[in-house]
C-alpha cells in the first residue's frame, strides 16, 4: 500500500476558493515515493494530465453525490521523455485577470477568455466564471500551450476555470 497524504479540497471549493495552492502545497510536502489522495466535488480531469506530466499515475473512484476520490501515486520512471521544462504546478500565482462570463451569450465567453489569455505574461494565470463547461475552448487552449483546471461548483450552477500561460 502506497504511503500517501490525504487532501480534501471539497470545503475549499464549497467556500468558493481556488484549491490549487492547497494541492500544490500538499505536493511540495510529499516525500519521495509518497502519493496524494485527493477528495474533490467533481472529477478533476484537467489535473490528471498535469499530474501525469509530473510523474504521477492516478486511480479515481466515484463517491456518493458525484464526488470523487483520486489517488495519485508516483511512477517509477519520469513520465515524459520530452517534457516542457518542468513547470512547477505549485507556483500558480494568483490570477492576474478575473472574468465573470456567466451572463454572456456563447461563444462570447470563449472569445473573452482567449483574448484575456493572450494578455498574460509567461506563467501568469487568469480565472473565469462560466455557466457551462467550455468544451470548445479546451482544444483552443491546448493548441496554444495553455494549461487549465476547472470544475463546477457543488451546486452545479457555475463553472470555475483557471488558465495558466506557458512559461
Amino acid at each position, binding site marked *: 500500500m502506497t504511503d500517501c497524504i490525504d487532501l480534501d479540497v471539497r470545503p475549499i471549493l464549497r467556500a468558493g476558493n481556488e484549491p490549487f495552492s492547497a494541492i500544490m502545497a500538499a505536493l511540495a510536502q510529499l516525500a519521495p515515493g509518497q502519493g496524494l489522495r485527493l477528495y474533490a466535488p467533481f472529477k478533476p480531469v484537467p489535473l490528471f494530465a498535469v499530474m501525469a506530466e509530473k510523474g504521477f499515475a492516478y486511480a479515481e473512484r466515484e463517491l456518493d453525490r458525484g464526488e470523487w476520490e483520486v489517488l495519485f501515486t508516483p511512477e517509477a520512471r519520469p513520465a515524459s521523455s520530452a517534457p516542457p521544462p518542468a513547470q512547477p504546478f505549485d507556483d500558480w500565482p494568483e490570477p492576474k485577470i478575473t472574468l465573470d462570463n456567466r451572463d454572456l451569450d456563447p*461563444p462570447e465567453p470563449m472569445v473573452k477568455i482567449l483574448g484575456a489569455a*493572450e494578455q498574460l505574461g509567461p506563467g501568469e494565470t487568469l480565472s473565469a466564471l462560466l455557466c457551462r463547461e467550455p468544451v470548445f475552448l479546451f482544444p483552443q487552449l491546448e493548441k496554444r500551450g495553455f494549461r487549465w483546471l476547472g470544475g463546477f461548483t457543488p451546486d452545479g450552477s457555475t463553472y470555475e476555470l483557471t488558465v495558466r500561460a506557458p512559461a
Partner: protein
Amino acid sequence: MAAGFGFPSADLASPDTLVLVHMVSIGWLSTAMCGALLQFVPVLVSRPLFAENWALPALVLLTAGLIALLCGFLALGGHLPLWLWLLPLGACLLIAGFGLIAADVVLTVQSAKSLDASARFVLVGMASLCVTVALGATFASQLAGYGGAAIDSVLESGVPLHAIAGLGGWLTLTAMGVSYRLLAMFMLSPDVDERQSRVTLFVGALTLCVAVVGGLVAIEAASGLGAVLLWAGVFGLATIALYGRDVIELYRKRKRRQLELNTQMAAYGFLSLLVAAVLGAVLAATGSFAPYAGAFAFLIAFGWLSGLVLAKLHKIVAFLTWLEAYGPVMGRAPMPRVQELVVEARAKKWFGAYFAAVWVATALLLAGEGTLFRVAALAMAVATGGIIHEFVRTRRLTDVAEPLRLPNGVTEPCLLHAR
C-alpha cells in the same frame, strides 16, 4: 417527386416509391443524423469519440449500401435488369455502415460516467436503428428470393413496423434527444428536468416496444396488426404530447429573448410534428389511415425531421465554420462574430418557402392532387437548393465583411471537410 417518380404517381408499396423513401430516409435523414451524432455525442457525454476514424469507412459503406439497395429496387421496378442480389448486398453494406456508427456511438456513451436525457434518447434511437436495419435486411433477402415461407408473412404485413422503427424510433427519438441539448444550448435555457424527460423517453420507448414486439407477435399469430398499431398510436401521441411540453418549457425558460433563425425555424418543425400527430389521430379515428399513410409519412419526413435538421444545420454549420476558421486567431486579432457568417433575413425566405411548400404538398397529397403535388415538390426542391446555397456561402465566409473576413493566419475552410 417533382418529376412524378414514385408516390403519389405510383403506389405507396411500389418499387419506385421504395427508391424514393430510402433515398430520403437513408441518403438524407439517416446520414445527416449519423453525422450529427458523431459530432455531438462527445459533447453530450464529455468524452472523446470512441473511434474518430470510423466515420469515413461508415460513410463509404452507407453510400455503397444505399446505391446497391436503390439499384435493387430499380431492378425490382423493371428499370434495370433483374439483379435482385443487389438488395441483400445493399443490406449487408448498410448493416456494416450503421453497425460501425452504432458501435462508435454506444461505446462512446458507455464510457461516460453519467448519462443525461439526450444520451438516453440516443441509446434508444440506436436500438431502434438496429431493429429497423434488421427488419429491412430481412425484407431485402426475401425480395431477392432468399427468404422462406416463415418470413414471407413478415414481408406481407411487417412493412409498417419497419417504417415505425425507422421514422419513429431511430430518426424521431434521436432527433428529440439531440434537440433537448441543442435547444438548451442555443436558447440558453436550463436543461429540462431529468425526471420529466425520462418519462417522455419511457413512453416513446414503450411505443416502439408495443409496435415492434407486439407487431411481430401479431404477425406470428396471424391476428392482424390493427390492435397493435392502435395502441402504438395512442402511446405515440402521448410521447409527442410529453415532448411538446418539454419543448415549450425550453422555449419559455430561455434566457436568449431574441430567437435566432435556427430556433424560429425549428419551431415550424415542431409544429409539423404536432400537425402530423393530429392528422394521424383524426385519420385513425375515422378509419381512413391506410389510404393517407403516405401523406402522414411525408409530413413526418419533410416537415418534422428534414425541417428540424435543416434549421439546426443553419446554426451548426455557421458555428463549426467559425470555430474552424477563426479559432486560431481568437483573442489575437479582430474577427467576426458567429452571426456575421450568416444573413438570417435571406435564409429566412428560403426556410419560409420550404415549410410552406411542404405543408401545401401535404395538403395536396391528402386531396389526391397528384399533378399539383409535383409543383409543390418542385418548390420544395428550389427552396432546399436555396438553403444549401446559404450553407455554402457560410462555409466560404462569403457574407463576412472585409477586413474581418480573412485576418492574418486565417484561411478559407474547405467546403466539405474540416482541416
